[in-house]
């Protein structure tokens, strides 16, 4: 037999780092793949819920990516979706219980949307597209990367919506009282879901302006 020792890839090789970097910009789940829009509209009226949801998604995504990657050779292809769902669902229930135990107020604000992480298309998509055919470590990085890409957009949108819609950031008054005395008013439209969609649109606009690779050639 050949004595050739397969050289181990370093943990943070350029290829692995790409798994984290790409989803943040070039293949961002929200602004490029347009996945997970529903939660981006629903929980971004305030910054705090957006941050908590981003972290929850990060945990669910990283762990279920690793689990599915470990199980990938044992999962019969016919029932793989069910297996994936079972893994995600158990993770989501865990996260939900933790949130209820430690940050009850935010958990109440997020209400059904923590549970709806199960149906978040990004997670299912990454399990199908990546974890099912890759080793645990790259799968872990991929999960982290995509969750970060998702979370960054959520937090940017929530920041602007809270700032312009309620005049606060993380529930602290940012816009000075003096403005209100001059007749400034909070923009009620920012709190409504349509404005989240438009904010996401503006982010896509800016992103494409700076990242020429994203512009379709025709």
């Amino acid at each position, binding site marked *: 037999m050949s004595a050739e020792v397969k050289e181990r890839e370093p943990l943070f090789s350029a290829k692995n780092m790409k798994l984290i970097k790409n989803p943040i910009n070039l293949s961002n789940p929200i602004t490029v793949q347009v996945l997970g829009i529903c939660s981006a509209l629903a929980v971004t009226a305030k910054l705090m819920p957006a941050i908590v949801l981003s972290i929850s998604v990060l945990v669910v995504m990283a762990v279920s990516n690793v689990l599915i990657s470990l199980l990938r050779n044992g999962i019969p292809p016919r029932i793989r979706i069910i297996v994936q769902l079972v893994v995600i669902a158990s993770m989501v229930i865990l996260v939900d219980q933790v949130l209820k135990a430690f940050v009850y107020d935010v958990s109440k604000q997020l209400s059904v949307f923590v549970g709806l992480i199960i149906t978040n298309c990004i997670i299912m998509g990454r399990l199908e597209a990546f974890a099912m055919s890759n080793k645990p470590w790259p799968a872990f990085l991929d999960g982290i990367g995509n969750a970060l890409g998702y979370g960054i957009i959520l937090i940017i949108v929530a920041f602007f919506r809270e700032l312009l819609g309620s005049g606060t950031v993380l529930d602290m008054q940012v816009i000075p009282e003096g403005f209100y005395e001059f007749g400034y008013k909070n923009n009620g*439209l920012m709190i409504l879901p349509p404005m989240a969609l438009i904010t996401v649109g503006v982010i896509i*606009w800016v992103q494409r302006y700076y990242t020429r690779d994203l512009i379709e050639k025709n």
Partner: protein
Amino acid sequence: MKALRKFIDKQKPHFEKGGKFQKFHSAFDSVETLFYVPDKVTTAGSHFRDAIDMKRTMIVVFISLIPALLFGMWNIGYQHFLSLGESPDHWTMFLYGFLKMLPIIVVTYGVGLGLEIVFAQIRSHEVNEGFFVSGLLIPMIVPPETPLWQIAVAVAFAVIFGKEVFGGSGMNIVNPALTARAFLFFAYPSDMSGERVWISEMADTFSGATPLGNALVGNFDNMPSQWEMFMGFLPGSIGETSTLMILIGALILLATGIGNWRIMLSVFAGGYVMGLLFNLWGLNDYMNMDPLNHLLLGGFAFGAVFMATDPVTAAQTNKGMYIYGFLVGVIAILIRVFNPAYPEGVMLSILLMNVFAPLIDHYVIESNIKKRLKRMKAILIKN
């Protein structure tokens, strides 16, 4: 006039390619063509420039808005002094309204044209005339006391997200003027609806509710007579109250062939039919209201004549226009009567139908193709 021409000609080389102000050529171009018919000729292909270009079209619409605009200014003053219990002469009223209105118009044009010029410059287009009319429509559909900064924000929103992201004038899906109003309506509801906003500097004891606002809460005691509704001596958005003045504008639009009679007619028909249907249903006082009142009150006439007929956002096919207009009327009355939060539904119904207009056109064209195919087959079989 000759001096102006000479002056413009003298400045021209600076703005052409290689001149020192080349960057501002679109600003220059917009000023030049505002005063004179452009001297450009086509260089390729066999088509010619019609004397009725977009600028002339827009100017006709502009002229047709003037009766309603002047009446609106007078009405601001009239309502103001009425609420105070005074009755000065008409010039005082007009002057009062004029001074209220002027800053709104200046801000709208300043912000809107400024943004248009910036976008035209970035894209190296010419400045489009589209905003010429929108800039007059926006001041006419807001309450007289709307804070100026809110108008500036709304105009910026409408120009950028209503128009420029789609590629500028002629590419927009929804009417920019109504986009601005919808923005104000949802973003700053306390300045756009209720009883306090329709009369400027109103006396505290006076009830400033519009007839539609009253009707929605079931108060029909001080409903104005139909004559008053028609003439427009009512509180409301600046340009919308007088049906008479709007109809004069409509006549100008129809006589010059610029407004579309199919749309106007079917909007009014839709509103009237819906009013009649509600009469048959008749569950409460509002449903039993004379359908004619619906057409005379609020922004119905204004929307039908100036907003629904916008050639960019309306349906394009003849059959489609009837369907589009009819549904605008129907939905407007439906929102008025059924939605407890919105006393007026014309803005929302026009915006909604703007979105559906391309779909309506699509099916009208498809059905036409099918019809012709059938006829073709029948002929082929016969032979």
